[in-house]
């Protein structure tokens, strides 16, 4: 993908959230997106047509993260009320509510088969919840982190968590091994490259770090943006050619993956960019911000 294909043109603005939007995520095929925010709601949108489809309300406090299954049938969300809500997408009903985190839940993800939910909490733990049984108890608690776990990623066999203690820990279920990569800086977001070989970790020293997963080697550092006090997401583009991330001054940065140069930078929002999500196939991206908007970017 050449530089000109980067989504830099604002296609749509999705308005509706009152207050900060804390996360915006594409669904599996990129046709829809989900957002959640301080107004305790989760909203389902068609970002390409700019339509608000549905609102999911039940959270008692702000909703910090949301994830949808690959078949788009179930939602999972978590937030400041220390609970994880398991929703039915079409009816908008809460199927189950998982309680157990001692503190706010920062991030949540389904596994590939949507059989398990992994949540990352401020209580320094990752918790794994079972969707198949009716139990609402966690089936696994991973508490080797030393500080708040900010972000979680799943592969087919691994659970990866990034924490404020500066580590990215990979829990390999197949081998029964924990790999801890200490970056020395608080990690507030991790995201996997599309080939699954690298982890991009957003650190609070305004640096994105690209780690090789097999060796734990630091491959590249991406700088220029501001990320010092808020959780701002980062991700790789669908071709893994560029790295993108939001800045606390409301701008979006694109870096070249290899030489770490800032390829593009533009002012996207008037306030902190909380989340960026890249379309799985097209050159399209959604960003959410504290200014209450979600913006859809296209080439």
């Amino acid at each position, binding site marked *: 993908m050449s530089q000109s294909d980067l989504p830099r043109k604002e296609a749509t603005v999705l308005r509706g959230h*009152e*207050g*900060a939007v804390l996360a915006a995520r594409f669904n599996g095929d990129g046709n829809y997106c989900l957002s959640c925010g*301080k*107004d*305790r709601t989760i909203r389902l949108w068609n970002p390409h047509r700019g339509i608000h489809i549905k609102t999911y309300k039940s959270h*008692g*406090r*702000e909703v910090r993260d949301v994830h949808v299954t690959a078949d788009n049938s179930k939602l999972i969300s978590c937030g*400041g009320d220390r609970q994880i809500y398991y929703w039915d997408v079409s009816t908008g009903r809460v199927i189950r509510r998982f309680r157990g985190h001692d503190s*706010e839940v920062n991030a949540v993800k389904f*596994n590939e*088969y949507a*059989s*398990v939910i992994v949540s990352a909490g401020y209580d320094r733990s990752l918790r*794994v919840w*079972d969707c*198949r049984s009716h139990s609402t108890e966690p*089936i*696994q608690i*991973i508490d*080797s982190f*030393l500080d708040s776990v900010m972000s979680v990623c799943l592969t*087919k*066999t691994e659970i990866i968590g990034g924490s404020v203690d500066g580590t*990215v820990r990979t*829990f*390999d*279920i*197949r*081998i*029964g*091994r*924990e*790999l*801890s*990569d*200490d*970056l*020395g*800086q608080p990690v507030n977001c991790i995201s996997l490259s599309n080939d699954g070989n690298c982890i991009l970790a957003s650190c609070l*020293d305004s640096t994105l*770090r690209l*780690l090789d997963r097999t*060796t*734990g*080697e*630091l491959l590249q*550092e991406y*700088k220029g943006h501001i990320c010092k*006090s*808020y959780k701002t997401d980062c991700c790789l583009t669908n071709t893994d050619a560029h790295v993108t991330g939001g800045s*606390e001054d409301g701008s979006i940065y694109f870096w070249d993956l290899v030489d770490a140069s800032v390829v593009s930078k533009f002012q996207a929002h*008037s*306030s*902190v960019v909380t989340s960026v999500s890249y379309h799985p196939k097209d050159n399209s991206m959604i960003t959410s911000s*504290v*200014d209450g908007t979600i913006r859809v970017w296209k080439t």
Partner: protein
Amino acid sequence: MDSDEEDFVFYGTPIEREEEITSRRKKSIAEASGHLRALPPWKQEVTDEEGRRRFHGAFTGGFSAGYYNTAGSKEGWTPQSFTSSRKNRAEVKQQNILNFLDEDEKTELEGQSFGTSSQFDTFGFTAAELARKQAEKEQQQRPSAIPGPVPDELVLPATESIGVKLLLKMGWRRGRSIRDSHADSLYESRREARKALLAFSSDDAKTQLTDSERGESHLESSVEQPANDDVQSSRSTLVYVLNPKQDLHGLGYDPFKHAPEFRERKRSCLSDNRKPGYRKALSMKDSLFGFKSGKVGPGFGIGAFEEYDAEDEDVYVTAYDFEDTIVQEVEVEVEEPSGVTKDRRPRLLGKEQGVLPGFIVASKSDYQLERFDPPAVPKNFVPHHKFSGPLETDKKFADPPPPEVPPPDDSNMKLLIDGVVSLVARCGKLFEDLSREKNQNNPLFTFLTGGNGHDYYARKLWEEQQKRNDQTMLAMDGKSSLADQKMTAESRGKLLLEKPLERSSKDLSSSVSSENAIHMQYNLTDTFTKSASYSELPEIIKPFKDDPAKQDRFERFLKEKYQGGLRSTDSGKASNMSEAARAHERMDFEAVAEAIGKGKHGKESLLSTQQFMGVSPAGGMQFTSGGLEQAKDTQAENLTTKNMYPRREEFQWRPSPILCKRFDLTDPFMGKPPPAPRMRSKMDSLIFMSDSVKPTKLEESDAVNKGPYPTPQSDTQEMSKIEETEVEVKVEVENVERPVDLYKAIFADDSDDDAETFDHKKLEEPEKKIEVAHTALNHLIAGDFLESLGRELGLEVPPELPYLMSKAKTAALQKEITNAVAKTPVSGTPVDRAVLQQRGTTQEGESLKKTFIPGNPQSSGGKLRETDLSENRTGNADREKTKEDARAKSPSSRNRNRSSSWSSEDERSRKRSRLHRYSSNDSYSDLSSDDRDRYHSKSKGRKKGSYHEKSSNSRRKHHKHKHRDSPSRSYNDAEGKKEKKKRREMD
């Protein structure tokens, strides 16, 4: 109470005795019931005159308890069971004292209670009370269709109160509104709505509103007011209020239904249309979100039962000002006709003026705020700041130069004047004034006030200022002003829109700021400490201007060189430079300073950077190279930090079986027992790692050596191994410890415990320990070589001591030895070096002695191989030397250098030293300092044995300890020697 007693006449009340009372009552009962003797005492009941039971059991109420015996209410004292359901709400009962009083008590109370007599019942309270009571009584007598008490509104005072009478006399007529101050809740709640209605009900609603408003706050005024207005349309008993619909919302829709806070706000906003600034006072934060923190998420409250705590603070508040938009939206949403606001305005103003209800602002206040006049500005004051530095020189540049004057004869005077001139030139006129003031009476400083030498002073000052001016001009011409030179390369690059370099972008935050800090400090000290001699050095000489930090260091260096006085303490070791780099830099500085000095002598007056560079091009080259090196240095630092992170660690982690199932994976721990809980802290995890290494090591040593008492063949194998590499030998040394390892591997789970158990063991069974050592030697060296060495060991105390001691010390940690190169960067101090040196000489002396001890042929063969090895080693050491310069110096590395130099003198002594070096130095140096710290801290206080005392000593001391040991240790060793001697004799 027999009949014969009735003849007595009693006067007064007799003291009744219990039995008498009971008997009398019994009698009365008996009289009443007629079967006194028929019942046993415990079955007889006491009743009052109405036949009610008087006494009850303690558990059924005691004295006179129960319904009919007590206060007279059914609830009385019996516990009430509270039931309330959705359909059948429990009544909220207001209890007062009357509920608990008997009838007689009530009558008593009736007489004593105070009340306003009807004659003076101004507001009709008492009358109303009476009327209500009457109504209640009536209701009780004849149950009405409506159950419950009569509503207050229906009960009106029967009589005309004195207040009404008064009002009537004052001109008030019935039906006119005066607000009775008796404001019940209903009234309160309807007041606002009523006002809204009134606002539109008539043309002069305005005046009415103000009047009523005031009447509410203070009754007296309202009493006076109503006389003025004749057209009062409303009645005081108006209850039903019709709200006019004035908005665009649907019928029955109340935008503020769930947020009554906004109602007030909206009103105030509307009324403030012409009053900016008021909104600020009544900001959203104050009224609606008046939480303690003030940092609250806008619009999204939390549940009613949730505690509001720090977690709920809106972290984004600073980033986004949400309030104003909300306000705007509300305003837009509930727009009202503008006429209303006009009507409303005076009311609100009135409200503002009346600060508290019931109080008015005094027209003339006694309290006068004392105000003081601002200080008078002197007439000649010019409100412009004068800059004492170059600005002044600019100004003076235009001044005509004072005539040239020969210097005064007194050389001291000349010096003094020169010094003062330079200072004044640097610090400005202010300094001159100050010193003049200070030295008014000092005959030496008369030149300041126009005395002897004043002309010379004036001339000099002018010259100096000229010079300085020129310098700055020159600097400007060279488009590198002073400020520019202090600019970092990064900022300049930014100015020139250059792409930032890799390095510069990396250490943006940390190093630059620290540089600035240093710079700042330097500037500060500079103003105080710069003396005349230094100030003559042109300031613009900045040979390292491409590296401001280095330039700083250079200037500091110059200052230290040429000048006394205050100086910053951290001058030399400011930044995190290595010693070698610092030394190198110092040499550079020396050269530069020399060049500058030369240049000064040659040219005397002015020195610009360009000129200076022209004078000594070679020096310039040198400087740039130095600067480059500095850059490299920082790059190396970055590299080291980079190398530190990311750091990968590996742990065992056990996924739960169900997790594996859900991920469609087979459980890697299937059928295995649950794992031990992992230690949390990093230190512990380190220990954990070392523990996990243990078994493999053990196996390794097992492979080398099967069984605790090896055969001669294996010994020879070991011999060859010894000579191969140092590492190998070290393994052998570990091998010595093998029995202990085994012990540990089996029984111990914590290394610290290991140390202790080992310590115990050692203290309790020194003989066993010696045996271990002996077997170790057996393993190490075969045949006669062993014998000779053993003899040496037996003879010489110092080499033996550290060996054993170190063994004891490092028992728990020895397994961590993996290579011979010391890792811990502990910088050696001069003391350290001296000690080492001393030790070296003693060792040499000893070794010289030992050379005379005859060795066996076998041992000589060993020696031969040893020499080979030693050559290798010296070569290695030489190579390493260069590295070690760059590296931080650790005692062990120095030790190695030294030992390699010995090796040429005496193989055996070297070997011995090597032996104990392996066992002590290397093992120690290999440990990370962290680990050692932890080890020390944990071991402290556990055992007061010699071992722990030593281990808690510093590393430096440790070297000494090898020679001079604590008594207990030497005792053990003496025993050990004896033991060895014995064994040798047996052999």
